């Protein structure tokens, strides 16, 4: 290859899109490193504190698209204190300073302020795409700034963010000349929006393919939008409440009968049972269906429509679907690849239905293409997991959450070690695994032995001893992220294989048996790790004894040294 001119090599690299591959390419030789870095336009920084923005921009001066992740994953579940960090502003400031031609910004679990959004809006004239997932810290004013200034905006995708809704007219702020929208998702906004502005925006966006509305958008508006935008492929319905006798409903029914292009459906934050038949014609064409925010969608209707979903590949539902409903899915949805079943009653206050191992077994036997699972269930058994492993050896993501976190096999009362062991043994391509239930060191031995492609492991309330954690650290060669809560692992486990942590993105341990001494030792022996002790309750004394127990520990490799924006209760040792 070295006899080719640089342009040829560069052209070849152009076809390499995966960042992993590009990282490998850049290690081959200096020439390739150089060519690759100038040709990389899409950069992923999996931990925003692993490297400084300056270094990223220095290495990849032609970057156009940046994907940043901030807080540790367990922040999604309130395990990370509010002000821990993950601020995007410094990154944007740096990009702006270097006059990067930023076109796409994708952020996950970061703190985004209105100032940051305004800076994005005003600094990058070619800005096209903003995707915010599980972020917080901004208001609809920030959205207004984006709308007003990004004239070529193609995508504004807000997924499950906490956005302070000032009920302003942010939708109005899209200029009349902005006609480039392809995807707009504001389903997570809680407040009202200007419906007329929305309709006008849709009317002047001929390329709009994906539109996800929030709960304040009524059916009448939905109908008008659908009339205006026959090219829509992905729809998030806001509120589906109307009078089945009304003219709107009749017109909508007629319209939907002809919309064969709709492939993806979500939303239904509110729903009138008697209006369900209007959407029946859509289901036979659907590839993706997300009803996980639709608790009002009655189980009866769910069953009816799922029978129609012959092409469905991705299904997100609430557990009120029940095992029976999952049996229907298994029977009807042979193309299913991804299934997520969320708890409709997470606090268990007594009104819930749930799913069990039976539903999962049914799905596994009916849906051979299944490769991605998130399953919140009331119980599980080893036998069921063994069956699932046999039926579906193609799992890439397998996340099982038993609502009672230490529950054993419901039939035999044994730990669930054998079941999960079967999963990791059968699913050679498994990259992400979350386990729960009553578990011992045994399951980790299986994981260490068989899960050679595992990149992310989440463990909660497991039993056993330090050996469990060691099996994983020593056996899982590709381990990238390990997060552990409420397990009995102590300093012995933490310190046994410290070099491992430099090969991983991060380690989270909370409510385990780690001591201050252990953390100090780790920090001392591995200077290129940030060992952050999170003293949320103020129980710890920074200079105190080694044997103080550390409740929350976050360890990650970094080239940036200890971070400068850490709050008082976060100590980088």
């Amino acid at each position, binding site marked *: 290859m070295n006899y080719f001119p640089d342009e040829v090599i560069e052209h070849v690299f152009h076809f390499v899109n995966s960042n992993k591959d590009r990282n490998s390419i850049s290690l081959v030789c200096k020439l390739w490193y150089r060519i690759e870095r100038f040709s990389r336009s899409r950069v992923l920084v999996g931990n925003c504190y692993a490297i400084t923005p300056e270094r990223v921009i220095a290495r990849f001066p032609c970057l156009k698209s940046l994907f940043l992740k901030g807080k540790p994953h367990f922040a999604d579940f309130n395990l990370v204190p509010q002000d821990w960090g993950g601020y995007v502003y410094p990154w944007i400031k740096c990009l702006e300073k270097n006059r990067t031609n930023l076109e796409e910004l994708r952020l996950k679990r970061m703190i985004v302020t209105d100032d940051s959004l305004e800076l994005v809006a005003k600094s990058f004239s070619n800005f096209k795409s903003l995707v915010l997932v599980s972020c917080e810290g901004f208001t609809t004013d920030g959205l207004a700034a984006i709308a007003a200034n990004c004239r070529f905006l193609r995508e504004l995708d807000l997924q499950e963010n906490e956005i302070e809704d000032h009920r302003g007219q942010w939708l109005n702020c899209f200029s009349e000349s902005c006609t480039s929208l392809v995807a707009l998702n504001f389903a997570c906004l809680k407040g009202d929006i200007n419906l007329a502005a929305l309709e006008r925006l849709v009317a002047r966006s001929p390329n709009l393919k994906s539109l996800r509305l929030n709960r304040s958008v009524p059916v009448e508006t939905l109908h008008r939008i659908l009339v205006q935008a026959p090219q829509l492929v992905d729809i998030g319905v806001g509120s589906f409440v109307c009078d089945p006798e009304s003219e709107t409903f009749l017109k909508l029914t007629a319209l939907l009968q002809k919309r064969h292009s709709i492939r993806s459906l979500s939303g239904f934050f509110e729903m009138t049972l008697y209006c369900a038949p209007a959407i029946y014609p859509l289901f036979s064409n659907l590839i993706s269906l997300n009803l996980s925010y639709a*608790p009002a969608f009655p189980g009866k209707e769910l069953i009816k429509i799922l029978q129609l979903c012959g092409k469905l590949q991705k299904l997100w539902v609430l557990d009120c679907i029940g095992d029976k409903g999952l049996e229907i899915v298994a029977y009807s949805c042979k193309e299913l690849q991804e299934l997520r079943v969320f708890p409709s009653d997470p606090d268990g206050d007594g009104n819930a239905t749930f799913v069990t191992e039976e539903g999962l*077994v049914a799905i596994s036997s009916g849906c051979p293409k299944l490769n991605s699972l998130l399953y919140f269930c009331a119980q599980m058994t080893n036998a069921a997991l063994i069956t699932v492993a*046999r039926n579906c050896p193609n799992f890439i993501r397998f996340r099982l959450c038993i609502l009672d976190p230490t529950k054993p096999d419901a039939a035999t009362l044994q730990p669930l070690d054998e079941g999960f062991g079967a999963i990791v043994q059968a699913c050679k391509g498994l990259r992400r695994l979350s386990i729960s239930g009553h578990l011992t060191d045994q399951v980790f031995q299986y994981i260490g032995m068989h899960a050679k492609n595992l990149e992310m492991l989440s463990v909660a309330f497991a039993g056993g001893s330090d050996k469990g954690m060691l099996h994983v650290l020593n056996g899982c060669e590709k381990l990238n992220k390990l997060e552990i809560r409420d397990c009995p692992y102590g300093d012995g486990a933490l310190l046994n294989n410290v070099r491992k942590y430099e090969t991983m993105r991060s380690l989270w341990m909370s409510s385990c048996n780690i001591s201050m001494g252990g953390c100090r030792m780790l920090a001392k022996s591995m200077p290129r790790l940030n060992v952050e002790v999170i003293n949320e309750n103020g129980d710890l004394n920074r200079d105190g004894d080694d044997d103080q127990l550390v409740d929350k520990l976050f360890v990650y490799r970094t080239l940036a040294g200890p971070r400068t924006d850490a709050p008082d209760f976060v100590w980088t040792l």
Partner: protein
Amino acid sequence: MTLLLAVEEGQGGGTRLANSPSADSVSHDCSGIKERNYLGLSECSSVDSCAVSGVSDENKSSLNLKATELRLGLPGSQSPERDLGVCSGKPEERPLFPLLTSKDGLCSLSMQKNLVSGNKRGFTDAINELLDVKNVVYTNGSWIAGNAGVDMKLASRERAAVKEAGPKSSAECSSAVNRSVRNPTKAANNAPAAKAQVIGWPPIRSFRKNTLATTSKDNEEVDGKPGPGSLFVKVSMDGAPYLRKVDLRNYASYPELSSSLEKMFSGFTIGQCGSESIPGKGKLNESKLRDLLLGSEYVLTYEDKDGDWMLVGDVPWEMFIESCKRLKIMKGSEAIGLAPGAAEKPKIKI
């Protein structure tokens, strides 16, 4: 640093993975599975174990459970017939856990799941109410088990605490318990008091959790209001530990409502081991069968817009759901003199 590769000998680790039980042994195990009380319910009450073992016996003997179904009947009403399940095949014939891959796309699961689910909270009923799937269903599960769901959570967390070496762990657990104040209004609305919850469990995004909580609160707000949208009304029953809610819009007639209520509340009444409570039905033979099992009388009443308590079943359905604000399953003796004609109606005898 030396790598520590512990091969677990002592606990027979290595061999276990190769050990896949044959179908035979599984079905053998299946029939040998007893109700287990691993959730620590034995201290709850002997009533519970009596109920639970009763369940499993009946399951084992026959799956024609219709005869034993407990009904809440309105005068003259009849529960809809139940056919075999959509999934095809006779439920009785399916093994519990098929270890052979069945590629016919049909589930091979049996109704005998109740064998192992004796300690589930009694939501089988609620599921089937929701789904209205026509199959043979045994209404099991007890409200006491449901109640123990509270204790179960505490018990298992305490177990988790005890398992761990450090003293901090148990302190941590209890402080986590103290720290977790979830949705206080929601807790107030739903019965089990003093419910300990683990922070960050189950692991769903707080955004999702909050959204679902809001949605269900919204549903409560439309209690009793007529019009499109859900019509959730609270259903209480004398002696039941907590309220349930039903969406009246889910039903089109009195029989539908009554059959789902009976499913919801029969669990509780079994738990009382047949002492008082089973809502019964009017005139049918089925109900007479049940009448034999249980010994008390219940009527379904509702509070209307004016605040009066009326017997359910007098007015046309549409009118009923317009005016019904809440439902209550009362003892027959208390219902005397409720609505005009209540005295003449045959008591719902059980």
